[in-house]
């Protein structure tokens, strides 16, 4: 299984404005690899994941291609996505999982139903253990779960269909460090067994544990694509450098300036207004060639 994203863009139409949520994304996720997608809050990570699964609302316009082997996910009919793709070929761990669980059914009932729908032989208990939950916790309703427990239920649900590709959108929120480590080990195991993982995360330490490659997104565009080792040795894009510097283990200083407005992005580099290295060159949109920066 291989995912090849080619010129993927997403626009939201709103009264009086258009939101450029994803612009011309290009990357390949090979079998057995883990790609971590990192970037500023609101830059388009979750929208990109939802676009791959045809889960965007009606005011979204998606263009470009996303090839899952020889199926184009962007043009595939809803029926194909619903019957063959979601949960089976691509699993999704949604961000804010508690908001996605059915409030009136226990975690166990939801896992059991998903397993039944997908025709899987596993038991809810076995799945729960893989996600770091005690089987006894499955008898609770969503509102009775702690934040980290709801996260683990969502992680278990996404593993139910044993999909060859997993889109994990912030799979570690609410998890303590031992649980984060266990979750990353589980993702690594999936990759080592030949599945692929797109990991969206703000937890750079978790990303470092598991990712083969890192994609950095800023203002709807991928601005750096690097091997995890090269990235953590020293990222090249000024935004990525600022992001690492903001870690509490480092300077803990935010990148100066305001986040970009995706309703009125400049023609040139969107990071320019906040960038210490900006020059007149940056009025022109830099092309992504490992890094999208005129000065890197």
């Amino acid at each position, binding site marked *: 299984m291989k995912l090849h994203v080619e010129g993927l863009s997403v626009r939201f139409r709103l009264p009086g*404005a258009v939101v450029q949520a994803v612009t011309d994304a290009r990357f390949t996720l090979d079998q057995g690899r883990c790609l971590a997608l990192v970037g500023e809050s609101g830059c388009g990570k979750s929208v990109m994941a939802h676009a791959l699964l045809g889960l965007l609302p009606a005011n979204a316009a998606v263009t470009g291609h996303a090839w899952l082997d020889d199926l184009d996910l962007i043009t595939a009919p809803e029926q194909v996505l619903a019957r063959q793709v979601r949960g089976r070929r691509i699993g999704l761990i949604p961000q804010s999982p*508690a908001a996605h669980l059915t409030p009136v059914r226990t975690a166990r009932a939801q896992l059991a139903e998903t397993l039944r729908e997908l025709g899987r032989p596993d038991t809810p208990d076995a799945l729960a253990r893989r996600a770091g939950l005690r089987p006894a916790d499955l008898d609770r309703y969503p509102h009775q779960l702690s*934040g980290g427990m709801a996260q683990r239920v969502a992680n278990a649900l996404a593993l139910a269909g044993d999909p060859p590709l997993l889109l994990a959108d912030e799979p570690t929120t609410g998890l303590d460090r031992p649980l984060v480590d266990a979750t990353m080990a589980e993702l690594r195991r999936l990759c080592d067994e030949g599945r692929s993982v797109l990991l969206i995360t*703000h937890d750079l330490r978790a990303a470092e544990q598991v990712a083969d490659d890192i994609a950095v997104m800023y203002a709807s565009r991928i601005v750096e694509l690097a091997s995890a080792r090269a990235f953590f040795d020293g990222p090249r894009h000024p935004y990525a450098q600022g992001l*690492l510097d903001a870690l509490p283990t480092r300077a803990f200083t935010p990148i100066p300036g305001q986040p970009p407005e995706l309703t009125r992005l400049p023609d040139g580099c969107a990071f320019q207004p906040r960038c210490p290295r900006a020059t007149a060159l940056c009025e022109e949109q830099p092309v992504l060639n490992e890094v999208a920066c005129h000065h890197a």
Partner: protein
Amino acid sequence: MLEATAITVSYGRHQVLDGVSLTVAPGETLGLAGPSGCGKSTLARVLALLQRPSGGTLTVDGQPISRWRHRARQRTSIGLIFQQPRLAVDPRFTLLDVIAEPLRAARRPLDRAHELAEEMGLTGELFTRRPHEVSDGQLQRACVARALALEPRYLVCDEMTTMLDASTQAHLVTRIEAYRERTGAGVLAVSHDAELLDRWAGGNVRTWRHRPDVVVNGSGGRPEGTSRDVSDRRIATRPNAEG
């Protein structure tokens, strides 16, 4: 002082908090860590007067609390930033409505909502959007602004930054520290991120160690150590509130 003494909370047979005591002083930033499911959010709701405990006492600046939720008079003295922003907002509200809601209820001028939104790094295009039209981190920032709207004496931040990138996280912590220094408010920061807590609270962190397995009459649920016991872990590099 925001002072919780011997707080117990049970959900049916499950005893989640078993005699927990914790104090947040005005002007203090206290960090609280502990395993997933050990009862941190439950304690946060008790401290914010949103959940009546089964036992124990809570006092706010010396006043004992006897009424909870909307009947608690001191309710606006404590701001809570919920762990899960998607569950904490009315989906029909715009982001600006979310922030202005407490101002409106208290009949205060609403312009403050704009200022707060901008302070949290929300740009103008987002003000009129509804929760499903913004990212999770954008929604969380609106929730932080909402919690600050009435200038609470105490602020409880329950996993405030887990859904935020490192830069936005540093930005929000800087804003909250500036608020604390300006107003002398006390801050309780709950998080799983030990490095963040250390940096944010300058080493003033309590770590809850019990495993979340307590069922009826269990003896767990007591945070170990007091904020003073951990002063040896204080680090020199306090985040600079001016940023």
